[in-house]
Structure formats: structure tokens, C-alpha cells
């Protein structure tokens, strides 16, 4: 396995990790009836945007532009998650949603984004992935890439439908308790 294949495997794993996180958020929403707040939805959108950088790498070959997109999205997502954490950081101000392993989902997003930023910086250390002759060898793993494309499309479609049912086309309520379009 050469350097290029390693980078491709790393991109596939990163994308798969983000998809798993988004699926967990969906499962929590459906299973525990934990409706996402506006900031939660922005964090989901931010994580989806991080995934776009890895998707670009898998489709067109590794480029610094694609990693930059993922890093921008990481910074955005962590900003939203920090904002939500700060809203609840003072003791007695309560929290939003359920906790997993003692941490709320928005705190997990901070941890995940910090790890993703470090991970992308590590991937950027490998200069050989940007060489033109390496970039032309993006042929292997097309089947896995196709499955990942379908998975991310599925996750995004779920988010579109659930958000539409929850808020319609207007601004989402700060503390949603029901799906606006279903429970009228």
C-alpha cells in the first residue's frame, strides 16, 4: 500500500466517521424524541460541510483547497458548539437534550471538531499526495466512494425532511417540543 492509498483510506475513514456521528444524532432524535434546536441544526450542517472536503478529495484527488474547506467548516462548527456550550455553562442554567457518556451532544461536537482539525493537519503533512502523477491514480475504491456518496445523501435527505417537518420554511423555535407540520 503506497502513500496515496493510505491518504485515500484516511479520507474514507474520516468521511465514514462523520457519517456515523450524523447518524447517531438522527437516532437520538428519533429514538429519544430529542428535537434538534437551531444551534444543533447548524452543527449538523457544519459537520456535513466538513464531510464535503473529504468527498471532494475522494472524487477529484487530494488538494489543499479541499482540506481548507474542511478546516473552515470545522472552525464554523466548533464556533456554534462553543456558543451553545457557553449558554449552559453556568451552573443552574440547565442543558439541552440528552447526554451520551456524561457529555451533551454539543460538547461532543467540540471534541469531535478539535480531533478533526488535528487529523486534517496530520493529513496535510503528507506532501506526496499533492503530486500530479499521484493525483491521476484515483481509480481504486470507486465502489466504497459510491456507497459513501449514497450514505451522505441519505443523511442529508433525512435532515432536510426532519427539519422541514420540525420548522417548515421559517426560523426554527428556540426550544422545539413538537414537529410543527405534523402535530397541528
Amino acid at each position, binding site marked *: 500500500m503506497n502513500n496515496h492509498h493510505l491518504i485515500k483510506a484516511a479520507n474514507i475513514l474520516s468521511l465514514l466517521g462523520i457519517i456515523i456521528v450524523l447518524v447517531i444524532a438522527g437516532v437520538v432524535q428519533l429514538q429519544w424524541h430529542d428535537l434538534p434546536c437551531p444551534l444543533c441544526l*447548524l452543527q449538523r*450542517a457544519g459537520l456535513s460541510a466538513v464531510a*464535503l472536503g473529504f468527498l*471532494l478529495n475522494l472524487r*477529484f484527488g487530494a488538494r489543499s483547497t479541499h482540506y481548507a474547506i474542511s478546516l473552515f*467548516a470545522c472552525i464554523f462548527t466548533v464556533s*456554534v458548539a462553543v456558543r451553545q456550550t457557553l449558554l449552559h455553562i453556568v451552573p443552574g442554567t440547565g442543558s439541552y437534550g440528552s447526554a451520551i457518556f456524561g457529555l451533551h451532544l454539543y460538547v461532543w461536537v467540540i471534541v469531535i471538531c478539535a480531533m478533526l482539525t488535528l487529523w486534517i493537519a496530520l493529513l496535510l503533512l503528507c506532501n506526496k499526495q499533492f503530486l500530479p502523477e499521484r493525483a491521476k491514480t484515483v481509480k481504486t475504491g470507486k465502489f466504497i466512494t459510491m456507497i459513501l456518496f449514497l450514505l*451522505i445523501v441519505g443523511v442529508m435527505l433525512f435532515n432536510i425532511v426532519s427539519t422541514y417537518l420540525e420548522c417548515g420554511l421559517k426560523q426554527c423555535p*428556540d426550544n422545539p417540543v413538537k414537529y410543527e407540520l405534523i402535530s397541528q
Partner: protein
Amino acid sequence: MMVLLFGLLLLCVLIIWIGWHKLAITTTLVTLVLLCAWFSHHVTSALNIQL
């Protein structure tokens, strides 16, 4: 509004799938800017800041 932003993200994925590289990057960056704009709108309205 969030529905439209998620829709834009889905559009980005489809453009990447089709293979239009420059359009994919442009659309992704525009979506990121719109996400930032919506977040800042949310923060300023929550803090009741008059800009």
C-alpha cells in the same frame, strides 16, 4: 431557512458527484458563508444587538 441550507449542502454533494470541480468548490464556499451569516444572525437576534 435551515431547510434551504441543508438543500444547498445536498446540491453541493450532487455537483461533486457529477464532477464539476470548480462549481462544487464555489457552491461549497458560498454555503459556508451563508451558514456563517445565519449563525451570526441567530446570535445577534438572541443577544438583541442592534447593528
